[in-house]
């Protein structure tokens, strides 16, 4: 097993933990943080492969993923704040109806 395989395996472990967080937790904030963990795991795999093949393109792509994650967090947290104003809760189970 070479270092690249180890890092890719680590990245898949982190991704699965993030996915479990999305599936098991009921709090919207926890779900968002788990999504960040999954994005980070994908970035880790990108950097590992960039190092393995000596290509900078992987690192540039990680840079783009980070900017998209920042945009996603800004909009997502704004949505959570708006939902909290009407529902007084951040649990996703409270959002099971279409009417406000």
């Amino acid at each position, binding site marked *: 097993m070479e270092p690249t*395989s180890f890092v890719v395996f680590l990245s898949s472990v982190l991704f699965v933990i993030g996915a479990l967080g999305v599936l098991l937790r009921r709090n919207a904030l926890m779900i968002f943080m788990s999504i960040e963990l999954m994005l980070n795991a994908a970035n880790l795999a990108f950097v590992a492969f960039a190092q393995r093949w000596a290509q900078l393109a992987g690192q*540039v792509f990680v840079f783009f993923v980070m900017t998209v994650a920042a945009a996603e967090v800004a909009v997502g947290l704004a949505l959570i704040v708006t939902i909290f104003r009407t529902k007084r809760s951040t649990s996703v189970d409270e959002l099971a109806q279409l009417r406000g």
Partner: protein
Amino acid sequence: MTDWIVLGLLGVLSVASALGLLLSRNAIYAALFLVLNFVIGAVIYLVLNAPFLAVVQISVYAGAIMVLFIFVIMLLGAERLTPAENPPGLNYQRPLALILGVLALGLAAYVLLTRQASAAPVAQSVDASPTAVGLQLFRNYVFPFEVVALLLLAAMVGAVVLTRKTE
């Protein structure tokens, strides 16, 4: 050999902090575990010859994004998480999620352990200084860069519009 010790230690710490995020009952503690995970990720980037991304990881993820998270958690006063109970009719969901997660992990381990790494020789290490990354970014990826700038502007406008109090 030292590389292996460092990588193994970082891997254990990384998985431990991720599990801390998954299991903690307090949203602030979970956010701090995530910060720890991001910092460890930055160190792994350093080991993997990506110093620019390591610094961006610290300043953007561990800095800006997590500050935003903790700010919102404290603003809403939502740090105490009620123990999750299953919504009616979804009792099978949590064990199923666990089983599927373990299955996905086992599949990844199987593929990585049984497939031989390709015989191609490991490429020479490339110059990954911020200068080189910047040149790559502005020579070959100018258009995606501009699109991302537009995306950030749209996200900013969206966040402002969404949180504005309607009269």
